[in-house]
């Protein structure tokens, strides 16, 4: 395992370096700059150039890039331009909130997808199977921004069961925090759960056609046990790969969901950062997201190998 990690580390770092360059470049390509958005709508050129100088935006681009890399290496991310406060603090807070949200969503994804995937494979010819398929299709067809608003209307406005949006610290008030968490997590989880359920159904169906299932049947193992204990474990490794990709989608989906549910996470922060051209915040955040993704991919590969004993870390 250590050799596996050592082997993957250089290319992971390379991806990060490339990503940093891309992020930096993309931000500079986007029209509008932090100074003008900071200056406000009624500022004069003097104000703008004063702010530019203050932010160091008048330096050559490559110098700015190197400066940023230097900041990254020393771990001192500096202050944000527009949002206020230190970038590191902003990201730490946002990361916590988003981590809660995605972790909850991930849990829901697994909790929803597992039974649905199994049902889809085993009850294909029965009404239950049709219902499962209808559900996954519906979830895939309705965009999350519609799902989100519908969930709020139903559970918050009409039924008054859950809050319409917002966030509570998990440490201060765990019971309230969970209630705040539920709707956005469901909204975020549904599409990924539907995708995963489909892959699981597919994998289980394929596993059920394998010879070892015949063996298990021949020794008298019950159908239920065959599905859950024999076919499912074989469908899991590739499902984990899909799940790994879905984590990327969860992070991306967070931009929409966090906005609908006023969830103060990275998605919101990215959006705010882009909207105000807060370069440091956006740069560091995007790089963080790429890093998270790369790590998740590494983890996925490790879990894959753990789930499938035929694969060994090389």
């Amino acid at each position, binding site marked *: 395992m250590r050799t596996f990690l050592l082997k993957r580390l250089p290319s992971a770092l390379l991806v990060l370096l490339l990503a940093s360059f891309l992020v930096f470049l993309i931000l500079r390509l986007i029209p509008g700059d932090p100074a003008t958005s900071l200056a406000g709508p009624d500022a004069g050129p003097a104000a703008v150039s004063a702010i530019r100088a203050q932010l160091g935006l008048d330096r050559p681009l490559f110098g700015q890039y190197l400066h940023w890399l230097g900041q990254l290496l020393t771990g001192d991310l500096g202050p944000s331009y527009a949002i206020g406060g230190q970038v590191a603090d902003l990201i730490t807070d946002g990361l916590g909130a988003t981590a809660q949200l995605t972790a909850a969503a991930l849990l829901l994804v697994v909790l929803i997808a597992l039974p649905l995937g199994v049902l889809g494979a085993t009850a294909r010819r029965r009404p239950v199977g049709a219902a499962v398929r209808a559900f996954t299709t519906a979830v895939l067809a309705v965009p999350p921004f519609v799902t989100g608003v519908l969930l709020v209307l139903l559970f918050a406005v009409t039924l008054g069961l859950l809050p319409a949006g917002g966030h509570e610290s998990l440490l201060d008030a765990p019971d309230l925090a969970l209630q705040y968490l539920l709707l956005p997590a469901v909204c975020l989880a549904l599409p990924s759960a539907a995708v995963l359920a489909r892959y699981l159904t597919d994998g289980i169906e394929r596993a059920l056609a394998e010879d070892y299932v015949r*063996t298990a049947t021949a020794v*008298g*193992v019950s159908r239920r046990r065959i599905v859950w204990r024999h076919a499912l474990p074989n469908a899991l490794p590739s499902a984990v790969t899909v799940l790994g990709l879905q984590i990327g989608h969860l992070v991306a989906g967070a931009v929409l969901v966090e906005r609908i549910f006023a969830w103060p996470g990275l998605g919101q922060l990215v959006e705010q950062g882009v909207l105000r051209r807060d370069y440091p915040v956006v740069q560091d955040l995007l790089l963080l997201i790429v890093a998270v993704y790369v790590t998740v991919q590494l983890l996925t590969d490790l879990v894959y190998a753990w789930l499938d*004993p*035929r694969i060994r870390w090389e």
Partner: protein
Amino acid sequence: MTASTPPPSATTATAATTAAATPAAAAAAAAGHPGAGAPPRTVLKVTDLTVGFDGTTAVDGVGFELAAGDTLGLVGESGSGKSTTALALLRMLPAGGRITGGSVELDGQDLAALPEPALRALRGRRIAMVFQDPMSSLNPVLTVGRQLDEALRAHGAHPDRRERAARAVELLDLVGIPDAAGRLRDHPHRFSGGQRQRIMIALALANDAEVLVADEPTTALDPTVQRQILDLLTRINRRTGTALVVISHDLGVIARTCRRLLVMRHGKVVESGTTAELLGAPQHPYTRQLLAAVPRLETPSGAAANSVPGPEPLLTVTGLRKTYGSRRRAVTALDGVDLELHPGETLGLVGESGSGKSTLARALVQVHAPSGGAIRFRGEEFGRGGERTARREVQLVFQDPYSSLNPRMTAGQIVAEPLIAHGLGDRAARAKRVAELLEQVGLDPASADRHPRAFSGGQRQRIGIARALAPEPSVLICDEPVSALDVSVQAQVLDLLARLQRDLGLAILFIAHDLAVVRQVSHRIAVLHGGRIVETGPADRVVTAPEHPYTAELLAAVPRLDPAPVPALTSRSTV
């Protein structure tokens, strides 16, 4: 039919177990029917069994009876319905298949009519099954212990987990897995093919079933391993009194294991009787045909009749080495191989899985670069010009006629590929050549526009040969060209190769594990073991007077068609 050569110096465990088992068999045979002396009880009675697949009839009115402790063999070629019959016994037909008539009575209970849950309760407990391919028939992600545990808990006989674990160890011990307790936590891929088949048998035996159905239990295995597995089945039959139904396309396998035989063709039983009767005096023409097609180890080489090898070697291999993997954990596949192949000669290369024979074949056709040593073609070394002529003149025939043909191309396109690759002829000339080649291998040139899946296994192998012949090679490397084919088809393909050698003066490197086949077609035989050639010599001499102990071991493992060691009927002992 001459008497078999006695097993040479018994150094292997196999020989030991056989020896241990024999007195018991003899005793049982002497006592006639041990126990009360009454005729043994019938455990399985199949009457007029008919199985349909989406409208076609795959099994048509099969019937037999199986007494407790008896052994029955079902023999037949592809499509004869033997495996479908086996699956129908447990009602485990694949999708689309259905028992459309007849009954399968297990102790008077008709399995064909039983509801699924009741049937499940019987599977594994009273009637169990061992499948053909131990590679795919064991769950790759579950440990062997888990799978045995599943089998044990399926029938609730052992409610305690530790008890089940103990029983699993016992079972692995029974089927001869060394260090059984230590290996419960290993996954199937950590076991060899033979060991996996043993584990399959252990799974089937987990609940002391009275009837064990073994579907091609040794087809995928090397001869020596095959022999061990067959001995194991015999031993189990004798020790526990489990009645055996063995399905095989290989008469030798069945003759060794079963007391009675059923010959099947096109879904019907064409002949049945005791093994001795059937082998000694076959009645049905098909049975006779089948018997005649089986290559016999005793048959002397027919290669000399085809051609006389030229004096100058065409292909010379010296000190060939090949290692895989990283430098630290290198696996040696070939360890200094020396070979010579003369024009018009057939050199039989014999070896079991892992001996390096496929690696050698691939090195010769330049798919793998060797790690050391030299290959010379017409005296020119590979890497110094020799490889260019060799690329065209050395061609390969593959083992598996299913996977070696591109499913997306027509037969004509497949055969034309090497012509295109070597830039031989224009479109019209190629079409003409393809027709010629197809005719040469005994196929209708009109079938050129059909896809591989429209051909039978034997026909596909002919396409493969036609493809190899396309660039007019002087050397044909045949990597197990007939081991995936039925015996009758096998004979036809061998005939084709012989004819081609006669007509074209080809040099053939014939790689196979079946010594009987190899002896028949080869001028000389080389025995490959652990990446080294351990013995080389004229074909007849190597078979009749092996010099290396490994050659002798290989020879001893070849199943014979003489019914001598067939075990007698044993009754079921209490387990």
